[in-house]
């Protein structure tokens, strides 16, 4: 633009004496500055979002290049919560690693405990009694409710509504109180053991879960009514962060993200574990592939989880909760203190581990975020030779860049909220 002013003025009256402005313009040109007004609008800006940003739900860092307010490209950077769990697993026994699994997806620790215990049992070839299986389904579904409540609450809060978040947290607190009764910890549960669970679920907890479940649907509907009829929420979610069905498969997505793209895959049905094949539930699938579809998938999964828990409470049998394999399953503490045989087994399991056969195994569960898998390589000793954790958040985050392409900068928080990543799991 500067150049054209210069030329116009020269054309108009070439005899005119050089004014101060012209002299200044000439000076600018001679210094060869490429600055012009049109350039200023085309200027691409790189925005560094995170790792300390409230909308990234942890320590996710995004490098976003912007054209005005439109996102041109997005590069997620991981590793701010990397603790080297796969390396730690190689030097700890199979039992010692259970507390670490709490810290993977710290929003649903019970599901991780269940996934890990199932993977080790598959490697050993151990079958647990019916009651143990029902307890595990029960706590895994509570974990799903716990995680989805926070996912929905945080997504809505990122858009600007604080009330549903507080209501979701209120419900979540009740689940944490149940965990407190079941295993003595609200957050870092470490409840499962190889071949069962740490202790039987007391009747008090089952009664408490029943009370919670009976109220939950109406409380959930309160949240859903205030959210789903909100014009701002719908307009900020509909059509945002779109991903096609083909892309979602190509990117290896699992869990609610995949089902929100119209692919019906749930490991609870595809590769049934525990007693899911005996329970009646539906897999919510939405074909739209946008943030709103992801919200609806999660909201409906909550209803399905409630159905599963109700069936579990009805069907849960009496009997032992731990497998009867004294060389692999930790004995009860009071028996360790009074019985010689149990003391020996306890000593051997704690000091030398469960020693699975020389084999490789992979076992996955449908955690709240998607496929949570554990690939074990055993060399026959008490600790795994190699443990690979297939964490759903890690592969779901890979879809962030395609989702964010050509969206507005204000939509980035909505997209992150709808992906619902947990960095403890993505960074391992």
């Amino acid at each position, binding site marked *: 633009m500067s150049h054209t002013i210069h030329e116009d003025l020269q054309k108009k009256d070439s005899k005119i004496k050089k004014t101060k402005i012209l002299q200044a313009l000439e000076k600018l040109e001679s210094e060869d500055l490429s600055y012009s007004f049109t350039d200023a609008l085309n200027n691409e800006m790189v925005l560094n979002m995170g790792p300390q940003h409230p909308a990234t739900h942890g320590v996710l860092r995004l490098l976003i290049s912007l054209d005005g307010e439109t996102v041109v490209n997005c590069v997620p950077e991981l590793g701010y919560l990397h603790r080297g769990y796969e*390396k730690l697993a190689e030097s700890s026994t199979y039992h010692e690693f259970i507390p670490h699994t709490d810290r993977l997806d710290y929003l649903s620790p019970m599901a991780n405990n269940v996934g890990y215990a199932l993977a080790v049992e598959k*490697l050993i070839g151990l079958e647990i009694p019916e009651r143990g299986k029902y307890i595990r389904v029960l706590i895994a579904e509570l974990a799903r409710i716990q995680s989805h409540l926070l996912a929905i609450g945080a997504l809505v809060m990122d858009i600007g509504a604080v009330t549903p978040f507080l209501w979701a947290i209120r419900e979540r607190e009740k689940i944490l109180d149940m965990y407190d009764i079941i295993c003595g910890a609200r957050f870092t549960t470490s409840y499962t053991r190889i071949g069962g669970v740490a202790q039987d679920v007391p009747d008090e907890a089952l009664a408490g879960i029943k009370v919670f479940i009976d109220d939950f649907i109406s409380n959930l509907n309160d949240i859903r009514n205030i959210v789903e009829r909100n014009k701002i929420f719908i307009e900020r979610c509909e059509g945002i962060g779109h991903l096609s069905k083909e892309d979602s498969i190509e990117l290896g997505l699992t869990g609610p993200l995949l089902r929100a793209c119209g692919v019906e895959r749930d490991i609870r049905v595809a590769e049934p574990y525990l007693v899911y094949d005996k329970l009646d539930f539906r897999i919510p699938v939405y074909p739209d592939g946008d943030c709103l579809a992801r919200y609806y998938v999660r909201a409906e999964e909550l209803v399905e989880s409630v159905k599963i828990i109700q069936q579990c409470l009805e069907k849960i049998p009496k009997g032992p909760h731990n497998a009867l394999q004294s060389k692999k399953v930790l004995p009860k503490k009071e028996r360790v203190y009074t019985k010689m045989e149990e003391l020996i087994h306890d000593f051997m399991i704690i000091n030398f581990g469960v020693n699975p056969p020389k084999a490789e195994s*992979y076992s996955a569960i449908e955690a709240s975020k998607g496929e949570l898998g554990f690939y074990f390589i055993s060399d026959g000793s008490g600790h795994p030779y190699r443990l690979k954790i297939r964490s759903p958040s890690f*592969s779901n985050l890979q879809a962030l860049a395609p989702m964010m392409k050509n969206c507005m900068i204000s939509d980035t928080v909505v997209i992150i909220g709808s992906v619902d990543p947990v960095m403890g799991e993505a960074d391992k």
Partner: protein
Amino acid sequence: MTKERLDILKSKLQGYITETDDITGTPGFYIDKEKIIEACKILKEDPDLNFNSLVDAVSVDRFRKKERFEMIYNIISIESNERVFVKIRLESKNPEMQSLSQVWKSADWYEREAYDMMGINFLNHPDLRRMYMPENYEYHPLRKDFPLMGIPGSIPLPNK
């Protein structure tokens, strides 16, 4: 996977499979690393097989003289609900192979993780950078010769 389906898969991949394996009930095969891209294209694009989603990649350090490293790819078919593991043996010195991100897009990050943790080099990878560790880090922590406590001084700490 049923036996008939497994036979179909084996016949389609004839000439590529060097050895079969069993991952506690799930089929796995070793494929020669020179032919890996062609074999994986058949796995993905053949209408009978249609293994369209790569969900994980495991890097292993077997810690032996010959063929120390190994990559294990975890591939599922969503339509027929089947899972296979494709394994590739890599040499001890300078382990490298063609990147499977040429076939499945999702291999991108899984291979970056393997490159970071195990030091496996992937050819034709779109963006081979470290996944978790800082870019100037020299070691590969999941190798068996890397000490559990880490190497003191390998990560510079911020000045006080």
